């Protein structure tokens, strides 16, 4: 599904990603862990197509297409979803209006008819329930005055509504208390199926108790330095990153 080869990216002449290789197959959950400044968020931004970053080498294929040639909206229309670490406020635009626009723009790109208001509302109600959110939420201005937890839930709510092929969750767990974490994880697990994939970017292991990864990668200084199964995350939680740094240095 997602095939990243030797990806190099920089911002303002500074190299951040220095040769990433990553393959994600349908049905899989990958976790990407690593210390601050290792390039985790850069990786998600580059996949989503943020213009601030310059890709200097390598390739990103998604469903057989070279996405580096595509605009951010085209990537989204193909089925790449990014749950933002810091969701953006758009005053005066309600959550429901934003979602309606989003869903219908994606449908339009696929040559489909817009979704009817009744169907849309029904689906919204269903998904809100999973995330234990009140329907009054739909008429609030997008992310304006939302608490940290509400913003993250709103991201997962949008993911549930858009049903992307690939969901990248960029530190969705940060700023969540334990109950919110459980609810968000519940939303993600409900979303998972054999045809889609999830990439979880996180500092901490605790989210991975709820969203169990098939593969865990450790990102350091712009490179994936270690890959393992879910036990690797536990080991990191236990021992920190220093032992990996030493391991890498000794190579």
């Amino acid at each position, binding site marked *: 599904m997602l095939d990243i080869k030797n990806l190099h990216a920089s911002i303002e002449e500074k190299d951040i990603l220095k040769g990433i290789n990553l393959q994600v197959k349908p049905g899989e959950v990958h976790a990407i862990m690593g210390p601050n400044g290792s390039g985790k968020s850069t990786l998600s931004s580059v996949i*989503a*197509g*943020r*213009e601030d970053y310059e890709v200097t080498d390598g390739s990103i294929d998604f469903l057989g297409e070279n996405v580096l040639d595509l*605009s*951010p*909206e085209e990537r*989204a*229309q193909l089925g790449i*979803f*990014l749950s*933002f670490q810091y*969701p*953006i*406020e*758009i*005053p*005066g*635009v309600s959550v429901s*209006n*934003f979602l309606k*626009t*989003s869903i219908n*723009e*994606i449908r339009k*790109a696929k040559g489909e008819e817009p979704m009817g208001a009744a169907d849309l509302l029904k689906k919204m109600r269903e998904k809100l329930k999973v995330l234990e959110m009140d329907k009054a939420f739909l008429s609030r*201005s*997008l992310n304006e005055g939302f608490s940290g937890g509400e913003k993250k839930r709103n991201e997962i709510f*949008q993911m549930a509504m*858009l049903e992307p092929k690939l969901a990248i969750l960029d530190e969705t767990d940060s700023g969540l208390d334990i109950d919110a974490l459980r609810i968000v994880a519940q939303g993600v697990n409900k979303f998972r199926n054999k045809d889609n994939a999830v990439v979880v970017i996180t500092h901490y292991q605790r989210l991975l108790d709820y969203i169990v990864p098939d593969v865990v990668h450790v990102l350091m200084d712009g490179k994936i330095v270690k890959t393992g199964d879910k036990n690797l995350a536990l080991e990191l939680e236990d021992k920190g990153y220093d032992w990996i740094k030493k391991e890498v240095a000794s190579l």
Partner: protein
Amino acid sequence: MSNSDQILDDVTKKEYEYGFYTEVESDRAPKGLNEDIIRLISTKKNEPEWMLEWRLDAYRKWLEMTEPTWLKPKYEKPNFQDITYYAAPKKKKGPDSLDEVDPELLKTFEKLGISLDEQKRLTGVAMDVVVDSVSVATTFKKTLRELGIIFCSMSEAIQEHPELVKKYLGTVVPKSDNFYAALNSAVFTDGSFCYIPKGVKCPMELSTYFRINEAGTGQFERTLVVADAGSYVSYLEGCTAPQRDENQLHAAVVELVALDDAEIKYSTVQNWYPGDANGKGGVYNFVTKRGICEKNAKISWTQVETGSAVTWKYPSCILKGDNSIGEFYSVAVTNNHQQADTGTKMIHLGKNTKSTIISKGICAGSSDGSYRGLVKIGPRAHNARNFSQCDSLLMGDGCGSHTFPYIETQNKTAKIEHEATTSKIGEDQIFYCNQRGIGTEEAVALIVNGYAKEVLNKLPMEFAVEAQKLLAISLEGSVG
């Protein structure tokens, strides 16, 4: 070239969508302005003697006045001797139905997406259509007549209801009010007149579409709306103009009279030709709009301004009666080289008078937008209250936005609040939308409509949709 630059480039090169020209034979006066031209207009319109005298008096006053120079916008002063003051589509006699209307004109309306049949059938909106200063079609008159409501062209009102016209014309905006109001008073060729009798709630939105159609024709509309005691009316004014290279002058006057307990809601969507990407051409829109409120009356101005090269306009309320209310809701968009100097005046004279001002400016390209507002509290206006909110949204680095709020109060019991904000559409907001599959154009439309929501919500439903589209079209590609 980055993606957004590309879009910017595409759109700024895009021609004005409504830039077509309808070929209709017209009956026009020679260029220039003098007393003979005014006599000609008056004769052409078959006006009574008092009307001609009124015009001539205005003309003489105008001759002694000078063009205002305090405006922020800079523009080339119009040559008043190079303007044609009268042009009317040739016709046998006044058409009784749409069938008699020149098919070319009907086609024009179709291009604008406002087929009269469609309007009549779907929305129940009665329209008094003005093309080049003479009304050519009037609908739904009968329904209105049954309620005693008069909704007709100004020329017709002068013929049929001279007592009302005589009583109210020039009472809110006097002939000598300002340079352009005086000019309008001297040479106006048509416009709309509306009278709602005592206690009548007008059951439909009254709507007028104005268009400037003839090359080099100045348009001087005169609108008078009188809501008698306890009545209610919602009036819509929408405008688009075809593309022209030479600047076109538009100097309208709108007067609203809300008698005791009456309410007038006046909504405008203005989309005249703004000039091309280099600032060439476009309409000069110098308008005087003012309303007067008697006891417990209410006047609400709502405007969405996206067009014209230069806009100079302050829809105002004189809150004369006790407990009267004035409201002003405005969205003004400027792009490319457009300049807008707009706002309102709220003149509180009566006790317990209230006013609300919500102004949302949106500037893009190399444009310049100013809010200029006056809140004046007279010595007898005890417990007057005003709330003003003036927000500006900037797109790109080439535009400018200014706020000039003036407050004059002569009564210590007044409460006046003023809030102002300036913000920019962020790349983060655009990217967030992009990531949800929403393209940049659509994202800008979404963000801008969200920003202007408080004002758009005040528009009647069918107008709000049109206004939303217009905002999006006006700002296409302006994020760089």
